[in-house]
């Protein structure tokens, strides 16, 4: 199961990196979203995929059975999902506002903050 999941994670990372290398903001953002999911699955696999027993300490026992699923990665992923979701929402709005203001989502043309024809500093008084 882990091996199969690892391959899926690899495919997700490939797709994400391919999209993020694009010059258009919207594709980069889709890449960022997929990257977030790739990482979440990575953490999930990192906790080992076991599903024999739920992580509940039974009556009379003091610790989890060794076969129990690992609950910590799920807590980590939950945190990471919330964070990446809110960031993605913010980035979408930001990209849309930038598109409205700059009339482009082509990063090659987004040169307002760093104009290409910025003069060098004066060479003398």
């Amino acid at each position, binding site marked *: 199961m882990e091996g199969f999941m690892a391959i899926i994670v690899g495919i997700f990372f490939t797709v994400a990196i391919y999209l*993020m290398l694009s010059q258009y*903001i919207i594709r*980069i*953002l889709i890449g*960022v979203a997929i*990257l*977030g999911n790739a*990482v979440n699955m*990575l*953490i999930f*696999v*990192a*906790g080992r995929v076991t599903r024999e027993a739920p992580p509940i300490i039974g009556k009379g026992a*003091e*610790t*989890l*059975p*060794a076969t129990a699923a690992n609950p*910590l*990665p799920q807590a*980590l992923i939950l*945190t*990471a999902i919330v*964070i*990446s979701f*809110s*960031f993605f929402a*913010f*980035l979408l709005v*930001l*990209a849309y*506002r*930038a598109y409205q*203001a*700059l009339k482009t989502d082509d*990063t090659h043309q*987004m*040169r*307002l*903050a*760093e104009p290409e024809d*910025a*003069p*060098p*500093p*004066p060479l003398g*008084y």
Partner: protein
Amino acid sequence: MAASGIPLEALQTSFALAPVPAVHWLVIAPPVWCMLVGAILIMARKRMGLQSWLAIPALGLLALMDAGLLVAVIREGPITMVMGRWLPPFGIAFTVDLTGALFNLAAGVAALGGGVAALGDIDRTRRAYGFFPFLFLMVGGVSGAFLTGDLFNLYVWFEVLLISSFGLIVLGSEREQLDGATKYAILNLIGTTLFLIAVGILYAMFGTLNMADIAAKAPTLAPSAPMMTLGLVFVAAFSMKAAAFPVNFWLPASYHTPRIVVAGLFAGLLTKVGVYALIRVMVMMFPEEGNAYSMLIGAVAIATMLTGALGALAQADIRRMLGYMVISGIGIMLTGVSLGAQTAISGVIFYGLHSMIVMLALYLAAGVAGRMGGSFSLHDLAGLYAKSPLLSAMTLCLFLSVSGLPPFSGFWPKAMLVKAAFDFGAWWQGTALLVSGLLTTIAAARAFALGWWRMPATGAVDPMRMQASEWVPLLALTLVSLAIGLYPEPLLALTLSAANGVLDPSAYLHSVFPAGVPTP
């Protein structure tokens, strides 16, 4: 019982509720306080008059807490605070050692200076859109990152400071800002995600996220695990956060676009968090891998400081010039990380503290210069010396400090790093440090000659006054830099023992696991 390997005694210690000494609450006080005040300020967002009256005293109190925490750490050594009695390595631990406490105090002082300067620089509209809440959340994130003892928690604090910095950088929504913020936001998010990837891989290998636990287990795990890969992902992630050479183009693209106070706070606080994390992970937790990558980090450091200094030389806009000086400073710190010895690491910590204060002050000075001269471009700025001698004197001090000339705070850490480099026979790193210092001096001196000394073409200059919100923080920060430069002994001793604590984390480990590190 034996299957999970947790001895019953460990459970019993966690049930024993010994009262926590009052001073230990200071460990979590800075982030909690920032979140609390930030939340109150959001609730009071309609009460514009209240915002600054609440924010400035709260920032003052924060700086006091940070100072108190530093004193406590000097007295007791590293202090650990555990959430909800879930003892390490299971619960989230906040562990503060001298390095964290020093950085935390400098961040608190910088935040106070920035907050006071914001009273004049941030207009009503921007305050109505939440400048002060964002400021508190960001400072809370920075403090949390410096104080936490849990790697996943460090990631969460990174995200906290990142999302509030997004809020600050777009405040005002000018077209330039949107352009800069888009690049800043996307690239920083990718950098932080890279960090999360590293955390995921680390969890798969170690099964723990507690920094002390990882540091203790790393040597035993090293022969059988892909530690070098893990180390490289960490180096890449933190280099991106710290703005090291090939992955730093988000910084010059964005740092000159927001209001000057925001830019100054970013320059002072955010990149240093990346350097701090690099020290924590690659020097304290994985010293073997850090050593193996010292050549790589050293090369990146040289590229960073030289491209930074050359970039500063090539800019006509003083804000953009300062952005490149921030990068150059990061290169200087990375050099120390790559050298890795006690003097070098203490030089890095010293430089980080100096840079937090001085870079913020330089941005504030540039802001005043821009207001008085009506422009940030060296083509148009002129005659500032005649307009305000006080501003000129402070700017000159700060320029000399950032160039690393005595008697200011930039000189000592740089001298330590150069000496460490030549002591180790790394003459190429020492030479690069000196060359980047020379280039920075030229850039700073030229900016001063053109913007401050040169008389405008019209000849006549009316003297102008600085507002209180301009000169108070600027003078205070300049005096701090001067004081450190003139009397570096106490800070030098502190950073040396801080570096000791990072290189030999036995005190750190003892603070987290008083009964010894549990063995699986």
